[in-house]
């Protein structure tokens, strides 16, 4: 199938898309604020996959490679958007009940958690996804997004604070309120 894709055979390309689009849309949904943006990202990712398929070496799983291409799209989009607006950094500590938040997030229904992640501002959402779900370190995230490691840490903290605030509003927490004004 890969060989046929490399020869631009449309049927093979469609088959590859059919096999991986379900999973990749899940990834895109996590990095986007809504379904429409997620599908735009998915489309862009697959176009790039087909354009760069010759670079794929048959060493790892194709799914993992496609996921990397998708994440690269996310990074690129973030970097280009970052140029247009000045990042305002808030390096501050939030006194949160860390373990309690983790427990609640893990216990949340998948769709519910996804909805909350999607409501995060773009930068927070990307850092949270990369750190908490993909398993990237802050140094790696900073390198990929072209930001300082401290910024990555603070954005992750703010993402958690925002998630916590959402959960408080929904009655999961009954403790102190966090000011997350940007």
């Amino acid at each position: 199938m890969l060989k046929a894709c490399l020869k631009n055979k449309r049927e093979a390309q469609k088959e590859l898309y059919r096999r991986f689009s379900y999973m990749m849309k899940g990834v895109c949904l996590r990095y986007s604020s809504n379904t429409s943006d997620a599908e735009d990202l998915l489309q862009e990712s697959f176009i790039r996959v087909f354009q760069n398929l010759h670079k794929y070496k048959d060493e790892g799983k194709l799914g993992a490679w496609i996921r990397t291409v998708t994440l690269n799209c996310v990074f690129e989009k973030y970097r280009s958007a970052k140029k247009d607006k000045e990042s305002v950094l808030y390096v501050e500590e939030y006194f949160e009940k860390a373990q309690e938040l983790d427990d609640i997030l893990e216990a949340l229904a998948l769709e519910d958690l996804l909805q909350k992640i999607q409501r995060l501002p773009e930068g927070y959402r990307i850092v949270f996804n990369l750190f908490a779900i993909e398993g990237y370190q802050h140094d790696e995230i900073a390198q990929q997004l072209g930001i300082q490691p401290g910024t990555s840490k603070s954005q992750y903290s703010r993402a958690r604070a925002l998630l916590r605030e959402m959960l408080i509003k929904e009655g999961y927490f009954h403790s102190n309120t966090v000011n997350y004004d940007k």
Partner: protein
Amino acid sequence: MTNKLNTKFEDFGSIPNPEVWEGIEASLDTRRRKKRLFWIFLPGSAAVLIALFLVMLPSSPGKSSAPAKIQAQENEKSPEKEKDGIYAAPANKDPEIDFPVSTSVSKKRSARTVNSLKFSASTLSDSQTASSAFSLPGIVSNENGTNEGPFVSKSNDPENDLSLAADSLPENPVALLDSANDSSLSEITRVKTDNVEAPDPRVSAWAFSLQAGGWDAANNRNQLISSTTVPVSEALTDVGSSSFVPPLTSSNSVTDTDTISVLKPLSLRANVTFTGKKGFVYTGGLNFDQMDAFYNEKRTRFMSAGINLGFGKGFALSPRISLTPLVTLNYDRFILEKNGAPPLTPSAYQAASFRGNQFSFQLDLQAAFHLNSKHSLYLAPAVKYYAYQSLTTVNGPILRRDWWNGLHLGWKYNF
């Protein structure tokens, strides 16, 4: 938390909207189209630019070869002139110098000026100043071919002559002489003594050529541009094969979106060519093509024969190399179809995929190397736009079209 959230999202996914794939497909098509256009227009533009350059060039080295030859012949017929030292050119000894267009002097002065410039070194004496030696009274018309002064104009327009003469006044005639003596004279001698056997493509001649080469489809997809709907039974009858088998059924038909993959025809052409005035080329002859079509990864071989008529213009780049852009119209007919080529034909269906007539418009750029006055070899990259009749669907005969890129090698024999 990382691992747990990772696990939570591990199998998470969602079915995308069908429009996503349509968007991807459209983007890939656009990219492919751009790529194809690039490869069509790049050589095309290069050919046009080269042709324009050659047409616009006022005095190319190739053009100078014919007059040089003629002048050399005149030298042989005019011993008097040679005796007078007009054409013989040993440096520093000849008092009189003729500047043909092709000399290196033309780099310093305009071709028009140098062409009309003749002056006698002997008329320069030490006592004479440059201005007096090149004074206007010395300029006369040269209708009779006589040299009556330091400047000789071949024009009949005295007013133009004056301006030409004024233009042609060298700022430092001695320096001009010096430069002429060393480099340009040796160049003149070389040009005149060359025995140029290769034919000038601008000289009228008849030739016969044989050409072989290959084509590659510019894209994999044939595009439907018209169709006629006929019943399946009629289509089968038209094919004329009792062994006609599926997939040609009403429920499993080939449509214009199906891919008939790369067509790679081998091409033979035998032509007679006439080169007329100013290098205009008229050509006509026979085509023979063998074509492999790949459908569903299986190969089917077809053969076609036809005629071609072409028109172009030849340009001499050097005495041995010429360039001839040619526009050709081809008419071909598939002569082996249906079951015509077993066992290579996988089925009657595929063999019936091409039939009938094919018209094409072709642009060739023949780069020829003239071995001698009789034989030439040439390389001809080409692009071809064609339309052909095809019977691949239950809709009956349809017209398809496509671009091909080609490369041909040819041998030409001048009568």
